[in-house]
């Protein structure tokens, strides 16, 4: 079968691309739309480094076909900061040294933003279980969890 | 003369000696001296060894100075992860 033409919205921008039916959304974001913020750590939905939001739902973009997103809304890490100011989570992750190598950071930030939009006051355990599908091998998660809980508190105060 | 301590696994090549004396001013001299004294050790030394001088481990340099009374040990080459 020849390539499929897909129209979708990524971080608020209209996009169109051609993809083989077997190519995943992750492949399309990276290789066709040059949005390389989502990373492939496993290709099987076990590591979360490719997390994006698809029509409001947090998903692994490696477990969605490019062809499936026709007419849908996608939010990636590249859409998380507005203009030049970073999202509070992005600021706090740097401040708390909540990242080392950084390969898992985009996926964790996208997943955490989705959590705080749903639950602005999560407990440590709720954050840890929400992020169970976002593997990190460098940090042992400690500083990541502290940065998230602190950001959530700041955002609650600010709102 | 410098006293060079070998690890026990090398005793087979040095007629059972753990310590051999070598004329040396630096690590390069030590390695050449040990190989000359016991040619069978040459291949192991060329395969890579580290040398400890007075408690400090020299991983590969041959120009490091050595005093006549320094505590010198041959060690397996150190690499890391």
């Amino acid at each position, binding site marked *: 079968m020849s390539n499929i033409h897909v129209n979708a919205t990524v971080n608020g921008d209209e996009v169109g691309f051609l993809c*083989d039916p077997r190519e995943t959304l992750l*492949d399309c974001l990276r290789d066709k739309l040059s949005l*390389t*913020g989502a*990373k*492939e*750590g496993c*290709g099987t939905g*076990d*590591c979360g480094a490719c997390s994006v939001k698809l029509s409001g739902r947090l998903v692994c973009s490696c477990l969605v076909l490019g062809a499936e997103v026709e007419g849908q809304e996608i939010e*990636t*890490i590249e859409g998380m*900061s507005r203009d030049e100011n970073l999202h509070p989570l*992005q600021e706090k992750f*740097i401040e708390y*040294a909540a*990242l*080392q*190598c*950084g390969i*898992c950071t*985009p996926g964790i*930030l996208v997943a955490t933003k989705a959590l705080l939009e749903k639950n602005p006051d999560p407990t*440590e355990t709720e954050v*840890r*279980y929400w*992020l*169970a599908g*976002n*593997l*990190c*091998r*460098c*940090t*042992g998660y*400690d*500083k990541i*969890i502290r940065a998230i809980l602190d950001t959530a508190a700041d955002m609650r105060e600010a709102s | 003369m410098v006293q060079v301590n070998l*690890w*026990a*696994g090398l005793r087979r090549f040095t007629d059972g000696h753990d310590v051999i004396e070598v004329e040396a001013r630096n690590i390069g001299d030590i390695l050449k001296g040990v190989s000359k004294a016991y040619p069978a050790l040459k*291949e*192991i030394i060329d*395969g*890579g060894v*580290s040398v*400890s001088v007075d*408690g*400090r*481990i020299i*991983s590969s340099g041959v120009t490091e*100075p050595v005093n006549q009374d320094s*505590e010198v*040990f041959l*060690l*397996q080459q*150190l*690499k*890391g*992860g």
Partner: protein
Amino acid sequence: MALDDQNKSNFKFVGTRPKRPDGIDKVTGRAKFGADSYAAGMLHGAIVRSPHAHARIKSIDTSEAEALKGVKAVVTRADFSKDIKFTSGKDSEDWNVLENVMADDRVLYDGHALAAIAATSALIARDAVKLVKVEYEILPHVTDVDEAMAVGAPVIRKGAPDKSVPPGLHENVVSYYESGHGDVEVGFQEADLIIENSFKTEATHQGYIEPHACLASLGSDGKGELWCTTQGHFKFQKVCAALLGLETSQLRVTASEIGGGFGGKTTVFIEPVALALSRKTNRPVKIVMSRTEVFRATGPTASTSMDIKIGMKKDGTITAGQGTFRLQGGAFPGAPGGMTAMCAFAPYALKNVHQIGYSVMSNRPKQAAYRAPGSPMAAFAVESVIDALCKKLDLDPIEVRLKNASRKGTKASYGPTFEEIGLVECLEAAKSHSHYKAPLKAGQGRGISCGFWFNFGGETAVSLALSEDGTVQISVGTPDIGGSRASIALMAAEELGIPYDHIRCTVADTATLGYNEVSHGSRVTYATGLATIKAARDAIRKLCKRAAEKWGIPEEAVKWEDGHAIPSGPNAGDFEPLSLKSITEKMGKTGGPIVGHFEATPEGAGVSFATHIVDAEVDPETGKTQILRYTVIQDAGKAIHPSYVEGQFQGGAAQGIGWALNEEYIYGSDGRLQNAGFLDYRIPLASDLPMIDTVIVEVPNPGHPYGVRGVGETSICPPLAAIANAVSQAAGVRLTELPMSPPRILAALKAE
């Protein structure tokens, strides 16, 4: 280059926690990792791998694959250098690497590469790989270390053993190490209690989330570019050049951001293949490993089989320690048998100690370093027996370790006398920590363990260029795997007396600097840090010279303080201090660009000790373990950037938890890897772990101007034993095999 002239202790910038220079790129997704680069006309490579553990290759038929539309080239071993010859032992490392990158006449493990294809898309390349027809003659295989040493085991490579191996051992034993002092038999006579036990650990993988990836471009003129994720691009340059018959200087290698390495990205796998495919197609070629390929065909750590015997008096004094360590490191020499043996008893001052290390080959992937290679396994065995002795003699585990702890002047188990070391300080800190005094509930256990790793210098070349606006650019050759760009900039700020924010540290490519050793052995903050301090002092000498010339006074009469050249001695007070910026502003007219340099192999690295405390709970009905509390206490000599030192402590502990409880390479009887993915190779999740508390002990290393010790690796050494001791106490039964999975714990409980 002996010890440095003066060691600082009061710091202005060092010890603060500024933001990392790569922070914004990483939190916005802009940071470029190995797979994030593209090139015009780029092809995609895919590798044909053996499904068999051991087989002779009778034929490779690529005709059908080459006929597939979009396929541009196929390479096999014939496309690589023929000048590299096999010799025994590790000094045939180039040959071993080449044989591992692309098999010759035999495939030696499940996943061994034997051909590769370049095509116009990744999908076509993957489809083409499935069309390659390989005819194999299956050979007998062995994957267990003890079986590989037994009589009758299949020989992996004739002539591989090096000179160290005594006669009479199986040909799979390729290296032998033995050391120790005193007489252990005498020591065992003096003991009130002797405990002997055997331990096993399975192979584990570094588990970096970023698979290996590279983009290569190589012309028939021998000139090439390689962009890849690596812990050592200078070594990759040297090795790739050798494997492809190039001159080293004709190949430029650029290190991308690295998505985790932990020792597993210190050697090449796909990079020479991409270069070979690029040379054959005259087009850039990108190869990205799948997660399955990373598990099957990169460099997990060795698996071990160990026997320990320790004698102890009623008062806790260890009278004798003996250990035999058998490690298999895949189908090539290199298993760290010697290192394991050297580390085993290093934390303890023993009158009588004896250790033997075997390095063995088997039909598994070529092992690579995994964070203090060998030391975690040795600690698991030794510290478990010490724990058992403490329980039997009803002694406090920290007191016993303090009584026997190595300190300055102790004759190390591996030979030399220790200089300043911080083990006693770590144990004291552990004893007084609230964690050690906190009460435990029923079904819970607390485990203690010490850990040790070396540190070393290695070739280092750094350049520090000053800009006319008074800011500083440092080029280093050691990829940043632990936050070293920040700590290097902090050390430069300390020397130059200008704020951290005016300094940028960049990892430069191989065309920019002299040779740099790989980022491993916890050496970067130590060696590159020391080199940066020297380069800064070199730049300061040149700045003072410009000031002296401006003031018309002798160079020696100018000193550098708080970022300013100041007249001193007889000329003190004659002139206003000159800021760095005021000198560099006109440097073009006063003699040209000012660049500080340092190129040498620094020696004088100091070892790093640690003590960990772990609380664990075991569900007696299912054998499942939960880690309740974790505290890491480690000697950093001097913490340059405390947040990133803590990060190394926490990361090593987390990897240790995975290794102790769930991670293992599972091979079937057919010699095939059964869990080549993150589903069944289970690394710790956010929901598995508690917060990991850290205590940074600082016993300065005299071999570094600021006292720095390398900290990156020791943090993985204590967890295996500390968790085993906690689990054994909680479950009431001693576990001697890792991982301590629920089925194993339940079986041990039932056997009680």
